[in-house]
């Protein structure tokens, strides 16, 4: 065949069905919004119980993490995510799902090399680069303060 990879790239782009952008975005908006709304309801109820603002936020996050872990264990979170896309990926529940799901999956390879080692297979980079960025910011902030 006398086709160049560049020409083939064009052909394959034409042949590949595109994501249904509007539908995907509506799902992401609806489900992502609903998870955040649940978070806000939890936060407000913890505030009403007398938690401080920071603690109420933390408690709301922890509650969402637990809900995510339970639904992940039951296989429900994956089923919702197959439709919701970023709507279940971006909230903290998605982070919890990304920790809990490899823990469950790699149990068959043992608790140390499987569960322990592979738990942060997906979430690891988030923690690594998040904390690295925060450390950089900490140094900059420290410098700014001395000005």
């Amino acid at each position, binding site marked *: *065949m006398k*086709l160049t*990879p560049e020409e*083939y*790239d064009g*052909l*394959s782009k034409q*042949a*590949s*069905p*595109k*994501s*249904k952008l509007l539908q*995907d975005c509506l799902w992401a908006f609806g489900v992502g919004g609903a998870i955040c709304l649940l978070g806000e309801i939890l936060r407000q109820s913890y505030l009403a119980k007398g938690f401080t603002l920071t603690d109420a936020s933390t408690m709301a996050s922890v509650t969402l993490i637990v809900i995510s872990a339970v639904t*992940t*264990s039951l*296989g429900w*979170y*994956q089923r*919702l*995510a*197959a*439709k*919701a*896309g*970023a709507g*279940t*990926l971006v909230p903290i529940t*998605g982070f919890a*799902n*990304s920790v*809990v*799901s*490899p823990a*469950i*999956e*790699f149990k*068959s390879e043992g608790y140390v090399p499987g569960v322990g080692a592979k738990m942060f*297979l*997906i979430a690891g980079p988030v923690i690594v680069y998040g904390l690295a960025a925060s450390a950089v910011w900490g140094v900059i902030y420290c410098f700014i303060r001395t000005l």
Partner: protein
Amino acid sequence: MSTQQRTGDTIRFSEPPSIVEFGAVGGKKEGQGPLAAQFDLLFEENTFGEETWEKAESRLQRHCLDLTLKKAHCKPEQVNLLLGGDLQNQCTATAYTMRNVDVPFAGLYGACSTMAEAVGLAACFTAGGFADTVAALTSSHFCAAERQFRTPLTYGAKRTPTAQWTATASGCCIVKPQGDGPYVKAVTFGRVRDYEICDINNMGAAMAPAAAETILRYCADTGRTPADFDAVYTGDLGIVGSRLLAELLKKEGVALHNHKDCGLLLYDIDTQEVQAGGSGAGCSASVLAAHVLPMLRRKEHNRVLFLSTGALMSQITFLQGESIPGVAHLLELSSQREG
């Protein structure tokens, strides 16, 4: 040996070997698909009664091998060689199946192309007089493939529309030098083709050039065209790869109107949420054994071309940014020994 003919890449058998028996076993989704009634055995649970997905795949293969041998009235000790493979790292599903089957075993890896590779080699062994009974056995398991190639099964991710669904299925063929058919008339082993597709979720696009290449070489070697056949089956190109195959052949002046893809036959792509179609070493294997070979046996097809296509990347090469090489092996199958 001298009576066999090889022209170019195509081996034509003067005494075409026969696929005397075949069997297909599928899992849950396969049992809800359009070919369900044609499978020999279907399971509701993809665990197949095992604890891990890897063991489940071996169990699936074992079911397939056992029932095919039974259909062929053939004892394991009568098998001179088993050629087989799967998608697991180091081909372990097949190797672990063969721990308990006392038959010489040669493991193959051709990703989703393994079935045509295995049957093609089996035909060569039997036609060449090196073996009297050769079994070709391949499988894939959605869950085993998913946890190895993609993400944990309970991880929430949306599939892209070009992604393909790994079939939980196994197919087996018993090849002998003589028999009542269907017959393997010719084999064209494919060359690796890479048109720099890097998207692991678009395997159809990565494999289509290899399929086109093999078909073109077969046509050049034999002077035939796809129109000379009742159907041209490809294994696992899916929607995207099927479109591209037709496009690529059109550019070379070859019309392809009788094309069917195993990945699109195995599932109802409108309702079963498999995105661009099925894939996996078990996909073309089970469609061959459940659908194509029975049609040849019932003489509903007289002559077909059957290609299995494989994407030969690994998780490591993908992460290193390498593009995805494809390969396609072709079998010319016929309901009649002569002609």
